[in-house]
């Protein structure tokens, strides 16, 4: 049985209450950090642990913390990004619903490390039940003396507030989140300056994902080196993966980084294989933004090595034959799924969620959606594939925030790996309305990619 750090006690009844959580060893990290460690010790442990941001970009958390500017007389803020809205990702919601005190404990430890006396948890507006749960957990922690003035007699003060978002995907981008938190329109800011220098209300701010913050609890409890023993190379620790799609057992799993993708899909401990005895056609490894991979590249890299659930192995081969870890939103597609339709679905999402600030994303996402809609409903032209390729190329890398890139990558990878399916759609407009293309030709039988 693989090691679990975040979801160890997830099945204990009443774990969402402070009392049960404490009985399972909760808030030990707060006591340890506040009583025996200096803030810099905590930062040092997190650096040693090699923890990488769990929100999608995979930036080392300890390094992000050490970038925080610390001018005198200016407050610092910790903001928890709970605006989880990437299609296919639902791990933070699960964590907040089931074990909210893990987040609160992580918030206290992280805020202490950063010297922040005010922290915000920004939760997506649609997740009202989770907002209630987290608010209740904060009230419990406060009455038990873990929040407020002079926590545990250490002289450290901290207030944590929950802020519901308006349900915009763009507000998951850290600077847009800060704008939204300040009560403005959620438009991403132009960087530099980065939030570590001028973030919330112009003060130095660290924005971390829910899971990253919760992961600081086992790091403080057991030490960073112990945490770094789990995983491979620069991918350390455990990661929550939210698996969905045509799987026998979809759900949220905590895996040790380094688990082979094949084992994750087919092992009974995890997803249990593809549902209804079908075959895997494609997978998205880390939420809708990352490149989609066909069957033959999902479980093996282009070099023929087994593909592992690590930041490095998933990205092996760049975007040509690899993908990215992203936020851990794992989506499996069986042979009956239509890639064109799926790409249209993703693109429609990005079109709807583009903030409209910079021109390539504002206009390009809508254009891609229209072209894909045309292809999907049998009015496509063979030149449209190259047109789509050209549009995504002109969005990728030319926008203010990563939403532009995120809208371009799924389209690029779908065309790169499933071009024959697009062509079939266009050349057989009537047939494509009644049946799906099935497995890609090169996925069945398996042909090694050179």
């Amino acid at each position, binding site marked *: 049985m693989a090691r679990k750090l975040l979801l160890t006690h997830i099945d204990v009844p009443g774990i969402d209450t402070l009392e049960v959580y404490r009985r399972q060893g909760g808030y030990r990290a707060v006591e340890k950090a506040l009583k025996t460690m200096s803030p810099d010790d905590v930062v040092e442990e997190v650096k040693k642990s090699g923890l990488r941001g769990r929100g999608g970009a995979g930036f080392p958390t300890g390094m992000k913390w050490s970038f925080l500017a610390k001018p005198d007389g200016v407050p610092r803020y910790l903001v928890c990004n709970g605006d989880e809205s990437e299609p296919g990702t639902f791990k933070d919601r699960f964590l907040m619903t089931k074990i909210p005190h893990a987040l609160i404990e992580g918030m206290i430890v992280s805020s202490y490390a950063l010297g922040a006396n005010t922290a915000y948890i920004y939760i997506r507006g649609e997740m009202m039940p989770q907002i209630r749960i987290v608010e209740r957990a904060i009230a419990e922690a406060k009455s038990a003396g873990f929040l407020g003035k002079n926590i545990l007699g250490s002289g450290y003060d901290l207030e944590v507030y929950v802020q519901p978002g308006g349900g915009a995907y763009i507000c998951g981008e850290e600077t847009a989140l800060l704008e939204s938190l300040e009560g403005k329109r959620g438009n991403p800011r132009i960087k530099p300056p980065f939030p570590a220098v001028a973030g919330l209300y112009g003060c130095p701010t660290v924005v971390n994902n829910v899971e990253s913050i919760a992961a600081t609890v086992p790091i403080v409890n057991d030490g960073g080196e112990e945490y770094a023993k789990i995983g491979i190379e620069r991918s350390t620790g455990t990661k929550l993966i939210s698996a969905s799609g045509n799987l026998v057992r979809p759900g949220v799993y905590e895996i040790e980084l380094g688990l082979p993708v094949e084992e994750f899909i087919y092992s009974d401990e995890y997803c249990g294989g593809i549902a209804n005895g079908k075959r895997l056609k494609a997978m998205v490894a880390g939420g809708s933004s990352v490149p989609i991979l066909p069957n033959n590249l999902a479980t093996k890299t282009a070099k023929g090595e087994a593909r592992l659930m690590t930041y490095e192995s998933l990205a092996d081969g760049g975007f040509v034959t690899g993908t990215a870890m992203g936020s851990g939103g794992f989506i499996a597609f069986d042979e009956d799924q239509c890639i064109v339709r799926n790409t249209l679905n993703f693109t429609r999402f990005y079109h709807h969620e583009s903030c409209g*600030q910079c021109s390539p994303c504002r*206009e390009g996402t809508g254009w891609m959606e229209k072209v894909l809609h045309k292809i999907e409903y049998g009015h496509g032209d063979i030149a449209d594939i190259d047109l789509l390729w050209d549009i995504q190329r002109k969005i990728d890398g*030319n926008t203010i925030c990563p939403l532009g890139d995120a809208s371009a990558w799924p389209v690029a990878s779908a065309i790169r790996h499933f071009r024959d399916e697009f062509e079939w759609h266009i050349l057989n407009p009537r047939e494509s309305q009644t049946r799906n293309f099935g497995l890609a030709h090169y996925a069945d039988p398996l042909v090694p990619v050179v």
Partner: protein
Amino acid sequence: MAEEGKFKVTIDGITVDVSPGTTILNAARQIGGDIVPPAMCYYSKLEGSGGKCRTCLVKVSKGSEKDPRPMPKLVASCRTTVMDGMEVQNITSPDVVEARKGVVEMLLINHPLDCPVCDQAGECKLQDLGYEHGADQTRYEFDRRTFERIDIGEQIQLHMNRCILCYRCVYVANQLTAGREHGVINRGDHSEISTFIENALENDFIGNVIDVCPVGALTDRTFRFKNRVWFTKPVDAHRDCPTCSGKVTLWYKGDEVLRVTARKDEFNEVEEFICNSCRFEKKKTADWLLEEPTLIEKDSVITANHYSVFTPPPVIKQNPKLQEANEEQLARTERLK
């Protein structure tokens, strides 16, 4: 070595010393000429503007003297500050030219291209941009998004179809006028410049949104359909105005002042913002003290047939028939000599 306290930056092979904190765009403007990236949303007089339209993208091929690594992506030159020893490629980089062409195409796919009936035609930055950097035809084959025209106040009309969402007018409304009543509603390509429930904007300086608008989205209702800009003659003038500097450009057709705008510099930016009474109410020559004809870029359509001296090609000098045909121009050339 750069001057004391100055940064040395090389743009398309031309080196210039600038103060720390200068953006790449402003460094390029100090050099001038063709290497200045086009800017649709950046406005030096408006704090916080820029970074949105992405037409000013450039490639940083060398980060700085200390850290010579190139920047991984193209950067918006209007919001990226220079470092000592930075090397920037603008028109010499095929990537930049390609990306800029893409941006222009994106800006135009939802633009109605109704230049023949648009008051901005002739002084529209999107026309210039499309002419200089765009493709010769569109690949977009779908319906363009449309909005209703809105009259905001007595003098300004908002034509949202033509808007490229540069946010300049939003910054004007926020920074020049009191009270925030003008902003952007909705999201993505449904975004719309709007006033609070279509309130009339009544503010002494709100007329400046017309001048900062790079396209014909915000137009002067007192000038609408009166004339094409290239048939009018701009003349600098001033008056003693209690609210603003009173320095304006009058646009004449014959003896009639058709409209009044603020004076613009070579980058099409307003030098000093003017008030509404100068702009909309003082439309008689008697209200103003005339200075001199406004200096217009020689390649601008506004100068057509006004100030340029006609230099007859040799073939005309030799051919009496052609001399006869161009009699009027030749006569004017003689007059201007």
